[in-house]
């Protein structure tokens, strides 16, 4: 298995800055998030949990991509989509769905398809870094998670 990536702490040299089309707009809309989730405290709790669990989920995505295992990739992307979806960052969800569509169509390797998948993968990595940074800030605002889940 490849090294598990850490969300929000990707070394800057991984992506050339000119390829990063990050707008100044944050991925998260706090007002909508608090309304849909219910409270700022709960948003902070699930942000902290996401930061704990996301590296494993992203690692599963990378591993499946490296193996070219489309079934495993679809499962890993579905899990990531479920977790990310709690925060409704639409650009990130769009990228995950685009990668899922490529996996569903079996278009991960060969010529143009490989290029598409690689671009989507890089875009996802950048977006997850930004999401991680924003969530780290949110998690810092709320009390630490003390509740056992599951």
């Amino acid at each position, binding site marked *: 298995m490849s090294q598990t990536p850490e969300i929000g702490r990707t070394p800057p040299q991984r992506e050339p800055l000119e390829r990063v089309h990050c707008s100044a707009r944050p991925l998260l809309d706090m007002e909508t998030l608090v309304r849909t989730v219910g409270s700022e405290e709960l948003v902070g709790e699930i942000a902290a949990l996401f930061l704990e669990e996301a590296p494993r989920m992203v690692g599963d995505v990378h591993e499946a991509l490296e193996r070219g295992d489309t079934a495993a990739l679809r499962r890993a992307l579905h899990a990531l989509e479920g977790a990310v*979806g709690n925060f409704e960052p639409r650009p990130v969800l769009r990228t995950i769905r685009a990668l899922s569509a490529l996996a569903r169509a079996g278009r991960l390797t060969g010529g143009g398809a490989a290029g598409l998948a690689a671009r989507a993968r890089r875009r996802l990595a950048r977006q997850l870094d930004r999401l991680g940074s924003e969530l780290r800030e949110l998690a810092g605002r709320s009390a630490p998670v003390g509740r056992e889940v*599951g």
Partner: protein
Amino acid sequence: MRILVADDDGVSRHRLASTLEGWGYEVVLARDGDEAWRVLEPEDRPPLAILDWMMPGRDGPALCRGLRALPSSTPTWVILLTARAAGTDVVLGLGAGANDYLTKPYDQAELKARLEVGVRVIGLQRELAERVRQVEQALSEVKQLSGLLPICCYCKRIRSDEDYWQQVEVYVARHTDAQFTHGVCPTCMDERVRPEMERWRRSRS
């Protein structure tokens, strides 16, 4: 009211559990489909369940199919909560036996409203099940009187289950809500009461 939350994603599980507990539900958590089935299969299963579609082990639709195959007078109200938003998925999910379908990302106000529909239906189902139980009990009592009753050819007493010979009116009163008032019919008046009174008058004179 107890509610099962089955989702393999810890973030979604925690969000749902905290929200539902805040609304007063008693939450049971499952991390995969097989763990969810261990909660749903026994007779004391929760009346409400929120199931993710894709989970390790049994998936959401498989859990719905399994649940619908179980005998129950008050079946569990199931909401499939999933990122799969295609119309065909909704049809598949409802066809498998889910009562409702909600796509991720979801709004907590919408989830609350949909859960309240489930709670109302569960209340109606319980009420209906209680009425059916009462009707069945009443019918079983009526059946006792429509069965074969041993009756004496001469005195018309009826033999009870305890082997006592009881007068017809005592027996009927014990097995129904009917009560008796006593009188004399015209035939008995002519054939029994009048001849007896005549005999009594003659014996006096």
